[in-house]
């Protein structure tokens, strides 16, 4: 029953990169388009021939076994690594010459698989750091505490509280980020990313380490975030329940290559995916 095919050979699904943009986003410039993206680390081809289009308000999933290259894709999109091949178009604009900071300003925000918060700073300061580029006053105004300092700090505070309220975290505002429980740290990372005012939010295993009820709540909140902010979300996740329930398009990566793309139903039925996850099926 299980088919055997070599890794380089395209399996069952043909891959038009734009195949699963939701209907409502079809006539708008996609928020993200990757063309033949690839990177090598020395001899290791971590990602190769990666094509993906994400619609303006799509929730897309990136799945695959450990070591498939999912996090590396995020690092390419945010220019932590410079791609060795291919192009990334963000809102139709080539990000070739941009660095991490510029990509952030252009609208990509992310969270990290191994949480990276500013541990010694308060939760509120972490969120305010997300707003760094939308707060305008400079160093001198800050030191002299001119009126613009007070005005902007006040509105930053209000905005931070508003964002924290998405996850009901307002009462933790003054806690040190490093001393938050694990789940709350993951949520804070999402809030901080949202604070940068992105058009594309990348979530790297947002439900990792969460219990089922936390995960269920997170699922609702991801959808809520998309609906309120009208942004696109690309998420890496191993929790299939979450992925299948909220993602509109899913892209499956194995050994750095896309092995399948499609709607949740397609993916669940795709033998290549099943094989990648479960290994070759043994004959009983």
């Amino acid at each position, binding site marked *: 029953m299980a088919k055997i095919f070599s890794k380089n050979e395209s399996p069952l699904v043909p891959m038009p990169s734009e195949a699963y943009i939701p209907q409502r986003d079809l006539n708008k410039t996609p928020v993200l388009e990757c063309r033949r993206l690839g990177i090598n680390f020395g001899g290791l081809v971590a990602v190769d021939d990666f094509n993906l289009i994400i619609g303006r308000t799509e929730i897309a999933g990136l799945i695959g076994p450990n070591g498939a290259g999912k996090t590396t894709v995020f690092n390419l999109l945010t220019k932590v690594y410079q791609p060795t091949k291919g192009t990334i178009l963000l809102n139709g604009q080539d990000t070739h010459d941009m660095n991490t900071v510029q990509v*952030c300003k252009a609208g990509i925000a992310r969270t990290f698989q191994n949480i990276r918060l500013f541990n010694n700073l308060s939760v509120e300061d972490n969120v*305010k750091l997300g707003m760094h580029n939308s707060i305008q006053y400079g160093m001198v105004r800050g030191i002299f505490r001119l009126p613009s300092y007070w005005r902007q700090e006040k509105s930053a505070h209000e905005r931070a509280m508003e964002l924290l309220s998405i996850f009901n975290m307002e009462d933790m505002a003054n806690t040190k980020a490093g001393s938050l429980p694990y789940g709350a740290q993951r949520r804070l990372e999402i809030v901080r990313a949202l604070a940068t005012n992105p058009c594309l939010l990348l979530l790297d295993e947002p439900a990792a380490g969460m219990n089922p009820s936390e995960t269920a709540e997170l699922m609702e909140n991801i959808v809520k975030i998309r609906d309120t902010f009208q942004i696109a979300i690309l998420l890496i996740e191993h929790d299939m329940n979450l992925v299948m329930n909220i993602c509109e398009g899913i892209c499956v990566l194995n050994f750095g290559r896309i092995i399948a793309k499609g709607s949740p139903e397609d993916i669940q039925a795709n033998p290549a995916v099943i094989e990648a996850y479960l290994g070759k099926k043994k004959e009983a």
Partner: protein
Amino acid sequence: MTVKRISKNTRTTFITYGFVAAAFAVLQVLNSSGDLSPLLSGMLIPICAWVVMAISLNLTVGILGELSLGHAGFMSVGAFMGTTAAIALQRSVESAPLRLAIAIVVGAVFAAIVGFLIGIPVLRLNGDYLAIVTLAFGEIIKSIFTNLYVGIDERGFHMSLLKDRTDLLPGGKLIIAGPMGIGGVERISTFIAGFVLIMICLIVIFNLVNSRAGRAIMALRDNRIAAESVGISVTKYKMMAFVTSAAMAGGAGALFALNYSTVVANKFDFNNSILVLVFVVLGGLGNMLGSIIAAAALTILPEALRQFADYRMLVYAIVLILVMLGTNNPQIKNAFATCFDWLKGVFRKQSAKVSGERKEV
């Protein structure tokens, strides 16, 4: 509960201001009534200078999270440039406090420029390069100033390296005389000026820390990759903190130098850079009050224990190692934490008894 936590940062700030102001007031009163020992009264200005050095280095090490091993180099730049300015302005600026203020500003500006020049190549790199380069910088600046000749006459400033080739007109004056440094300095530094300088530095640091730029600086310390991912430019904010820190050290250098009649480059050597680092580590990274207390205590101690001064560096080394072990050892940390909790408990019980309040659970 929440209200308490909100004020924690601000509280530390005001405790620090209060402590410095109170210490100044007490010392000033004792000093003017003649109740201070001559030893201590002669130490007041150097203490101020070292306190400024400690808090400024704490900005680089504790708040920015970069190691600098050449902080005395910036002090040296400030000392020489500030004193030169003071001497050059001797006639044109009558008021000594104003001349002192100008000297401190000149020292700070030059140190800031030097800090900026060092920062351009080094702060782009990640890793411990700053430590290595500042270490070298401290030594280089020392040998520059031991070989520098600067003179002034009516044609303006003249300078040369290695040999005195300033060719001053009659009536001109050689200010920096190579290995002899600067001699015959009018001692215009005052304790009040030292206090004002400390307060200015504290205000700058605390206000910076609680502003957008300061948050960005601390974000770089906590997690550079995350900081970049939210759009914080690494080089810009590292530079901002490093240059501010260098400028303060320059100001401290000018204050320090104008307290003595001679300035020589050997006063600002590697030992002093390490000494300032010891103040910072002992006082706690990022803890300004700690730095102030450590700097003051460790400046007085060797003078008070003159006969043991030979072992000074040995003791510092041991203390430094112990403190590092202590801060990294969870058991010792826990022991301290338990002590503190116990103390807190005692105080709370007492205050509860006094006010008849219900104990917080």
